């Protein structure tokens, strides 16, 4: 038997209370995917570099691979699934779609989650600020131009502008 048995945790994921058993060493990214079925949490590098697994922990973006699931006990986690829960794309997702801001799509969930949080705090960003904010999410397909355009468009729409 392991000297480090699974421990019970209760936490909230996308508004739903979850109770599960997890060994302390399990990454939150793995628990979200494997135990909660939230496969929108993409696992790329597992050491905090690529940004694909970014989720919100109590509303703040965080790498799910740099948090152990036990640390989420009594906290609130939001994954990309929450942003289109009603079947409608979020403003950021819609803008990424329109601007062709993704190709293979692997990095996209991390970008959506990061930008949803970032635009709340930076409603009227410049392109340079958008590029800086995106620097923590590696995309190897698009070359970023279309992602920047999509975020700018989403920012304008969220402000109530018509950005078409």
């Amino acid at each position: 038997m392991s000297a480090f048995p699974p421990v019970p945790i209760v936490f909230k994921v996308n508004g739903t209370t979850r109770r599960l058993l997890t060994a302390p060493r399990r990454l939150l990214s793995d628990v979200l995917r494997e135990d909660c079925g939230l496969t929108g949490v993409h696992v790329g590098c597992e050491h905090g570099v690529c940004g694909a697994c970014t989720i919100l922990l109590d509303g703040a973006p965080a790498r799910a691979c740099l948090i152990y699931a036990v640390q989420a006990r009594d906290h609130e986690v939001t994954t990309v699934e929450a942003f289109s829960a009603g079947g409608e794309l979020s403003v950021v997702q819609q803008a990424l779609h329109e601007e062709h801001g993704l190709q293979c799509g692997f990095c996209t969930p991390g970008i959506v989650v990061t930008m949803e949080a970032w635009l709340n705090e930076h409603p009227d960003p410049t392109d340079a600020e958008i590029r800086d904010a995106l620097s923590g999410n590696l995309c190897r397909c698009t070359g970023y131009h279309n992602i920047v355009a999509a975020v700018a468009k989403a920012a304008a729409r969220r402000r109530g502008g018509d950005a078409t």
Partner: protein
Amino acid sequence: MKPARFAYEAPATLEGVLQSLAAAGQGAKLIAGGQSLAPMLNMRLARPDRLIDINALSDLGEIRRAGDRLEIGALVRHDGLGRSELARRHCPLLARAAETIGHYAIRKRGTLGGSLAHADPAAQLPLVALALDAEMDICSVRGLRSVAARDFFLSIFSTVLEPDELLVRVTVPIASAGEGWGFRLFNRRAGDFAIVAVAATLSRGSDGKIARLRLALGGIGPVPVRVEHLVPNPGTEQPSPHWSTQVSQIAADSVEIEENDRTPAAFRRELVAALTREALDDAMGRAAGATS
């Protein structure tokens, strides 16, 4: 990229953390934001038996002014430090440096205490703590002690913290009236650790001469270093237009730079000259009493 097994606890009080640390001995590691430790665990560069999580100690997440110092809790996140009105007003160099760390999601999670205790030789916060003469308040079941930043960093990833100790708070003297500051770093990609970073503050007297200069360099050796003593008598004459060029060249020529595999020392010496000049120019431009 999965960590080895460990036991985990998250005490609700400082007392609880200190007792756990004292009981656990060498095999335990404290975890706060985990932005440096978790990658090391995931890559199994570190394999502690036990993680003691301090994220529940919300008292350590506060910034307050106490007389002529700012008291900054060890759990203050980089993003919070960069946005803090108190920090921006009273320790603008520190707030600015925090804004340059990693990426948005990293800054939301990473902590001041974690960065200082991790002691990466190229990290921003150890450099700025040294430049600003910060004091580290350190707790254990044995009591509280304060260590000056100058004495805190021993070597790469190594500090004076004992296994049973927790860095709880950093106190930083607030910027004096009219003090200018500069912070410059060079890296190859946004969010990477700096190859070289420079922090400077300076104050000018009513005669325009430099009354006080602090200059610190990171990325050149195992710990950040203060180098203003290498600059001969900055206050003896009115700075000329070439002052920052001269001072930065003297600093770059005389400072010891450790060779490493990744970036030649000669290149980093050029970076020291260039970044120091820019940081000094920034500081001069921000200082009261600038005449030019």
